[in-house]
């Protein structure tokens, strides 16, 4: 049963510290998405990659957030420096290559719950 994995599941840190969240997409998937979920804003798309290349990170605060895919099995989302307003659940999702052009499903990981004090 292939799944997207995310680490850590929970992270508590102090304002100003660097936070790194990791995601292992489902093997063979070529699109990777990062989302942030808060009670106030709901689910927001932060960035996404196709074949490891960043295609859109317009939803991400550029001054403190960065997203990378060092290889096909790892996606990272970094926040430096972190702020209390970054407290949220961060989800990673991956999608398969579109064998059927009209069909596209994203598979979400369990999320990383980040608390910045």
């Amino acid at each position, binding site marked *: 049963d292939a799944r997207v994995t995310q680490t850590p599941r929970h992270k508590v840190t102090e304002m100003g510290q660097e936070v790194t969240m990791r995601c292992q997409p489902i093997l063979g998937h070529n699109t990777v998405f990062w989302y942030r979920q808060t009670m106030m804003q*709901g*689910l927001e*798309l932060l960035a996404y990659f196709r074949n490891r290349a960043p295609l859109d990170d317009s939803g991400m605060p550029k001054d403190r957030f960065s997203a990378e895919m060092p290889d096909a099995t790892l996606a990272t989302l970094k926040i430096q420096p972190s702020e209390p307003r970054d407290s949220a659940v961060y989800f990673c999702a991956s999608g398969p290559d579109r064998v059927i*052009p009209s*069909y*596209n499903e*994203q598979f979400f990981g*369990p*999320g990383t719950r980040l608390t910045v004090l």
Partner: protein
Amino acid sequence: LAKTTQPISMDSYEGQEVNITCSHNNIATNDYITWYQQFPSQGPRFIIQGYKTKVTNEVASLFIPADRKSSTLSLPRVSLSDTAVYYCLVGDPSNDYKLSFGAGTTVTVRA
């Protein structure tokens, strides 16, 4: 991305059918309609996707009228475990299907 409107919440009882209607008046020709389900403390999960008429799978049915300006997700005979948030999304799959999640509909199933 087309904007969607759906009820904030719905209550139901076990064994009943739940129908959630989503409005998407500015849906584009290439857009598909997709529904996701999210349980507490979990990531969203794909339920069903359609373009027109009716689509059915083991979990739900999706009804889409000819003008495609709305769609209805039907959950047959719900159980307590169907309590979740349900999101209606509209987008073009050929565009890597960037998803725009709204507030969703919180469905609460009671015994």
